[in-house]
């Protein structure tokens, strides 16, 4: 976003990308609309973490780019090394934070308030809605604000079942809010053609990714130099402590180069930007750049996540039709309860899945345990396992009958959860790597317990046959490891007090005025919302501020 706004303001911009060039409209990169047999592993996740057709080059572990964890703690770090990064494959769930989300400390006394309010960000959310496009509905919900929405798609059959079942237990289900173009928003991007494959990146640019919707337009309209396979090592500074540019490693040549700049804007992802700052040590910035407070890397927090699945007997042996829809859910549940009436401080939203999606690796698995749910015309269950024509028919009957719920919630940002530079390890580019220290607290465990109770309530109300066991205390109530939801934020948080924050309210470093961080590092608290829409709004806001300050001669 910053590249686009700054370039359109007439500035010359150098964009440094640690991975390769990627454009989903070019056939050489296209995984969209491929059938399962086009992959020798039928879409299995042995090479790409989210399946063979997923548009993320990288994953939880990247050859030659390690990271570490302190003993007894967990953190999984997903990186995607390509133009557009993780926005090429993400879920497109585009939620504004609400007024309360910026002031959680005032409500529950935990964490810290943001130095800005919803009113400061609202104009930018509005602009992001209109520029990029997001479907949804204005519901007048206090903490899930209305916006400039495109029309949503109609619910699928399992989503109608979910809506009905949730309604029976007083849980609201509303149209989801995804940055997918059900209508066009400009001449450069097409409308969604409903293939359900947004995670493969869209060759019509009908969903949001930063490469297709921001960097490409910026390159067309402004003066932008794109450097690919350019792994930034550090931000350079002068004797007064101001940023002068960056040093990067050209991954093809394995050589270091420097780029000089009047202003440096980091948007490498929360942890990678923290890493760059911590690796940018100088006489003026001995703890790393902009880290006089020692806060860089701290307050790292990810969304919580837990999931449950059921087979819905009404959907066994169902009629066939093209049910692909958009990539992801057509309906969802925003946080609907009052935290003062439950035993955990922060909320969660629920995402729903199911339907007759493309069969991929895994289709037909597990008949040794699930074939029993198929019943013949007399109500007799099939035997588990087996072989032959009957098995083949039963797999066909079971297809499209599962529904699932994922809870995604807000965790409480803690100083004790952090990433730091490991003193003894470098990556293959010679750059010191991160070491993580992260544990969940009772707040998150209690929230996950509540999620699972709710999942069972809805799935049971639907008449679903619950799959698997409900996780208990010994399994942290099914909480995914920190990092797994890939919403890590908070490592360079903003605030008014330079001794407890890295950035000011314009995402500008307190200690280095020509340095900005425009990824989720600036987040003070994360909300029970996905971070992307807020990243985009804050990045736009910071970019406007940069342009203003330059005009005023302050930068």
């Amino acid at each position, binding site marked *: 976003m910053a590249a686009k706004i700054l370039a359109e303001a007439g500035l010359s911009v150098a964009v440094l990308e640690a991975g390769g060039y990627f454009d989903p409209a070019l056939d050489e990169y296209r995984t969209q609309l491929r*059938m399962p047999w086009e992959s020798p592993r039928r879409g299995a996740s042995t090479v790409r973490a989210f399946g063979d057709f997923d548009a993320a080059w990288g994953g939880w572990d990247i050859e030659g780019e390690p990271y570490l964890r302190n003993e007894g703690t967990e953190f999984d770090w997903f990186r995607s090394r390509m133009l557009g990064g993780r926005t090429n494959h993400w879920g497109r769930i585009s939620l504004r934070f609400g007024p309360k989300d910026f002031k959680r400390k005032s409500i529950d006394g935990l964490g810290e308030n943001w130095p800005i309010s919803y009113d400061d960000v609202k104009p930018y959310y509005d602009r992001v809605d209109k520029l990029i496009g997001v479907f949804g509905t204005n519901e007048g919900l206090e903490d899930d604000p209305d916006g400039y929405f495109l029309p949503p798609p109609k619910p699928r059959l399992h989503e109608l079942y979910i809506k009905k079942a949730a309604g029976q237990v007083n849980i609201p289900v509303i149209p989801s809010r995804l940055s997918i173009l059900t*209508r066009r928003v400009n001449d450069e991007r097409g409308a969604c053609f409903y293939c359900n494959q947004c995670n493969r990146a869209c060759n019509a640019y009908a969903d949001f990714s930063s490469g297709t919707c921001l960097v490409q337009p910026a390159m067309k309209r402004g003066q932008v130099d794109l450097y690919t396979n350019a792994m930034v090592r550090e931000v350079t500074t002068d004797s007064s402590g101001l940023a002068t540019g960056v040093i990067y490693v050209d*991954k093809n040549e394995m050589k270091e180069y420097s780029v000089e700049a009047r202003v440096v804007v980091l948007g490498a992802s929360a942890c990678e930007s923290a890493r760059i700052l911590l690796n940018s040590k100088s006489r003026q910035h001995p703890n790393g750049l902009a880290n006089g407070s020692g806060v860089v890397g701290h307050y790292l927090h990810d969304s919580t996540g837990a999931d449950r699945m059921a087979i819905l007997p009404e959907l066994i042996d169902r009629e066939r039709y093209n049910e692909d829809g958009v990539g992801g859910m057509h309906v969802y549940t925003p946080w609907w309860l009052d935290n003062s009436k439950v035993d955990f401080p922060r909320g969660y939203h629920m995402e729903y899945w199911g339907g007759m999606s493309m069969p991929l690796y895994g289709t037909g*698995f597990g008949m040794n345990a699930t074939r029993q749910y198929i019943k013949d015309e007399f109500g007799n269950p099939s035997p*588990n396992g087996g072989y032959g024509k009957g098995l083949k028919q039963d797999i066909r009957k079971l297809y499209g009958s599962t529904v699932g719920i994922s809870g995604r919630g807000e965790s409480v940002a803690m100083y004790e959860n952090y990433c730091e530079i490991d003193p003894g390890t470098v990556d293959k580019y010679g750059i010191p790597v991160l070491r993580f220290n992260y544990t969940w607290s009772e707040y998150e465990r209690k929230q996950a317990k509540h999620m699972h109770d709710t999942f069972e309530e809805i799935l049971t109300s639907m008449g679903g046959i619950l799959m698997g066991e409900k996780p208990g205390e010994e399994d942290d109530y099914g909480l995914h490891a920190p990092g797994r939801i890939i919403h890590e934020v908070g490592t360079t948080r903003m605030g008014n007090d330079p001794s407890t924050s890295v950035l000011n309210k314009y995402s500008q470093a307190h200690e280095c005025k020509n340095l900005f961080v425009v990824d989720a590092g600036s987040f003070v608290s994360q909300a029970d919302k996905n971070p992307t829409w807020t990243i985009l709004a804050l990045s736009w806001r910071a970019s406007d501020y940069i342009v203003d300050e330059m005009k005023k001669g302050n930068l």
Partner: protein
Amino acid sequence: MDRREHLKLLLAGGVGTGLFLGTSCTTEDQQISEEIIAKNSDYSYGRTDEEVIRDRLLLEDQFFTENEYKMVEILADIIIPADEESGSATDAGVPDFIEFMMKDFPPFQLVMRGGLMWLNSQCNQRFNSSFLDCSESEQMEIIDMIAWPDAAEPEMQYGVRFFNRMRDLTATGFFTSRMGVEYLGYEGNRPGFWDGVPENVLRKHGMEYDQKTLDECIKEADRYRIADWDGDANLI
């Protein structure tokens, strides 16, 4: 340097990223590598160079012995036979898929090789011949002892686990093949417009779209109209 060594080196070095730094590759070697990447025509679906080479290595490797592969073929067709509606697992190319997965996900190797050997030893004990040399009825006699997990004897658990894995791989290989997808009746992956669940299906499930949903959802006629809003965030 032979071709295989070449591929391995390419993969280890990181394709395109300082490819031949510190190695003794010649210009000719480099040409061979580039040709290998360019000529990977059997699978072309948005692969990075590293992925092309990794898959090429796996495809050129052979895990199953000839006899093991024959057993896999027989078992796959027992699990998914041909019927009046479609061909069998081998007709759909499932054994090749299983062979590929052995290399793509090495933890499968022990389960499968060990399981096939266990099956042979059971056949030897009972029928004094290997699985391949058993008659069809002998083969089915032993398969019936391991194919039904809830009814199997405790001492058959090794076989049950192996057959569960074999069933998983065969089923998924079949249902992700062109033939299997047709048999399954998957109708998606076709660009079009989603206008909700068909009316007859809604009726059958006792569902309907309420008026609010019908009013607010996208209509096909509007999809190519560039969106614009009034000052109150209402779509015009």
